[in-house]
């Protein structure tokens, strides 16, 4: 199949970017979206041109690096998948496909489709952990936890930290990401100990990074490749408010 690509090219965050058009006429419908970009890059290299920079690692939907906005949708129009899980059979012969980076003040552009998502790392460093001694992981069945709670915590833990929620949000808010991490940890006994400190620290870091406020648009849930629910945002709000009014000592 043939496709026309309109790809955002930008050599750095302080440089001017623009859409550049490329035509590909040897695309197979079995290719993943990233494989299609591999084909494009191979052609560009053959012509001694600079290939399109894009991030990728696992190519099986778990690493959260293959971030791009495809035809206006983070990770493309398909629901519940990352870019690497999107295949060319979902496009038609002759389609024009627009490809842009995730756009948010807190995600500066490194090059073309690659953005710096270190802000997420700093939020995790602020509180997205449980303090335990190092060594062998505890046996999974050693602490009995209700099935409903385990499942809910696991659903929140499915967040791969890709940042599609930020890209989808008109305010570039990181609430879905932060709420998924806070929920996943605070629902489990291991994470309850530091729950209040965590909610405070992660929200503070989120604000410092320059992410926008949540105004309940819920586009984040619609675009999340892992189907993280906005119910987590409600839980984060409750955790955060609770932590303001009660101290860690009384918990």
């Amino acid at each position, binding site marked *: 199949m043939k496709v026309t690509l309109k790809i955002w090219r930008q050599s750095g965050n302080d440089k001017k970017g623009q859409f550049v058009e490329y035509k590909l006429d040897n695309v197979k419908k079995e290719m993943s979206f990233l494989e299609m970009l*591999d084909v494009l*890059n191979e052609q560009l*290299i053959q012509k001694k041109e*600079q290939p399109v920079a894009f991030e990728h690692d696992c190519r099986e939907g778990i690493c959260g690096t293959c971030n791009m906005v495809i035809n206006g949708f983070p990770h493309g129009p398909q629901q519940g998948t990352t870019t690497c899980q999107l295949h060319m059979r979902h496009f038609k012969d002759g389609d024009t496909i627009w490809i842009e980076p995730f756009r948010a003040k807190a995600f500066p552009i*490194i090059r073309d489709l690659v953005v710096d998502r270190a802000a997420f790392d700093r939020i995790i460093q602020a509180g997205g952990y449980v303090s335990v001694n190092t060594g062998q992981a505890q046996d999974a069945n050693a602490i009995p936890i209700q099935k409903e709670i385990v499942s809910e915590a696991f659903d929140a833990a499915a967040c791969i930290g890709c940042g599609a929620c930020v890209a989808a949000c008109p305010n570039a808010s990181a609430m879905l990401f932060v709420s998924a991490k806070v929920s996943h940890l605070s629902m489990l006994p291991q994470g309850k100990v530091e729950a209040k400190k965590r909610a405070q620290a992660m929200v503070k870091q989120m604000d410092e990074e320059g992410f926008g406020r949540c105004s309940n648009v819920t586009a984040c849930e619609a675009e999340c490749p892992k189907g993280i629910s906005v119910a987590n945002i409600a839980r984060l709000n409750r955790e955060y408010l609770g932590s303001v009014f009660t101290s860690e000592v009384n918990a």
Partner: protein
Amino acid sequence: MQGLADGYFVIPYTIGNFLANEIRTSSINTSLPEFEQAENEVRDRINKLLSVKGNQSVESFHRRLGKIMWDYCGMSRNADGLSKARKMIQALREEFYRDVFVPGTDKEYNPEVEKALRVADFIELGELMCVDALTRNESCGGHFREEYQEEGGEAKRDDENYAFVSAWQFNGMDSDPILHKEELIFENVELKTRSYK
């Protein structure tokens, strides 16, 4: 493949313990001769790759290497194929450093430089895998040397001569690597032939 590579499972447990002991070590000064030497070596490697300015992409070399490994150094291999593969990889390496094209510079975000460094490593490692397989005259682990099989086609191990782990020392790009044997000594179990029958 990740499942077969032990490091994937072992590292998460060992690295935590290692780092726990280093937690009070402050950041290490980079103005040390060792750091400078390592930095210069990496810079030289990068400049070497960028200065080739040939006609073939890094990706094309990676694919050709993969095909050689797939054909001759897969789960089932034999001495003829492995010797042939080694020669093919040596020729590929020579071609790589003569005709690879790495776009851009080292002063920018450049994934092609990173890929070129990796593929250069893969070429060396691919050859080493063939060398290693050639020295092991038995069928062991997940790998089947066609010359060494039981009558029914089962893998034939040789514990008398090959009960060791091969640790290879790099000895320059054009010299044979040096073998260090790490003997496998079993105190509480005896070695037996594995049978799935």
